[in-house]
């Protein structure tokens, strides 16, 4: 395998996502190269596989991954499947005390991918925790926008978090955790 083939799984494309202002309008987001490269550098692959599967909506381009997509495949989805978008993470985020320009898209995949190598493939499909949602953090501040490329924000990370006891498609304590729910 040459270098170009080897690093393809680390070249995550820009993605489309519903706009914070209007769910029906799509905007373009980049994916933090820092998040991808630092995780790859320390050999932590699971978050990168999850980005491919649940944010880009494609199988990660790694050897024999199609094996995992035959029976009980991971949930292929994009941010277009988000059940909610919150704004403001109520914690210091660079110069902003409240992270008010950070958005959180909420997804509810039922199957996911994790790093589990065997002789054929390094990823394995598994159930997503049933009592969790997948939160995808996006920075919408100017530093993360590239107007020339129509990029309106940057996906900085994704995390499974426990869901609300009364609303399984929303994060636990979302009323206290975020500044507001946009849709």
């Amino acid at each position, binding site marked *: 395998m040459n270098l170009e083939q080897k690093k393809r799984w680390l070249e995550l494309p820009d993605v489309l996502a519903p706009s914070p202002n209007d769910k029906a309008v799509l905007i373009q987001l980049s994916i933090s190269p820092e998040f991808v490269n630092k*995780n790859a550098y320390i050999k932590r*692959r699971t978050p990168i596989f999850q980005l491919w599967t649940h944010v880009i909506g494609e199988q990660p381009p790694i050897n024999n991954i199609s094996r995992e997509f035959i029976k009980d495949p991971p949930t292929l989805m994009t941010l277009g499947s988000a059940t909610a978008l919150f704004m403001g993470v109520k914690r210091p*985020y660079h110069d902003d005390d409240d992270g008010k320009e950070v958005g959180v898209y909420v997804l509810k995949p039922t199957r996911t991918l994790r790093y589990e190598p065997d002789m054929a493939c390094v990823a394995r499909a598994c159930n997503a925790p049933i009592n969790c949602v997948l939160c995808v953090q996006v920075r919408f501040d100017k530093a993360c926008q590239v107007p020339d490329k129509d990029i309106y924000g940057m996906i900085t990370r994704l995390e499974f978090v426990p869901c609300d006891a009364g609303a399984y498609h929303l994060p636990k304590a979302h009323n206290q955790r975020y500044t507001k729910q946009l849709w």
Partner: protein
Amino acid sequence: MDHALKIELGSLAGHYVPTAVYFQDSDCVEYVTHDALCVYDRVDSFLTVIYDEFQKTIIGFKLKGFSKAVKTVLGAKGSHDQFLQLVKVIEQECQKLGDNMFDEKRSYLAVQKMAANDNNCVLDREVLLPLLKAA
């Protein structure tokens, strides 16, 4: 990025070793014991505890919001290089913290204590800020 680093990054060979990493884009340091499906449980604006997929065992932590504190310590004359040096110090301290907490000879009580110690995180006020000032 040089050729060797590109090859290293692209390779799917090799095992994960627990490593504290500062992510500048999301302004947080994360430490997990293994490359697994993680569940993140927020404790407060500074600490998030990381559980395994069954949410029974704590396998790491995420500490958030360093950028502003570091810039405050550095002052107006602080350079980006100094910022990166201080971030390195934070990573090293988080590495020690994680290695000690998750050492198999010890228990997980330390992180659980951090989680229970809501809004009074030991690393935040008693360790981190003096460390930054000293650096």
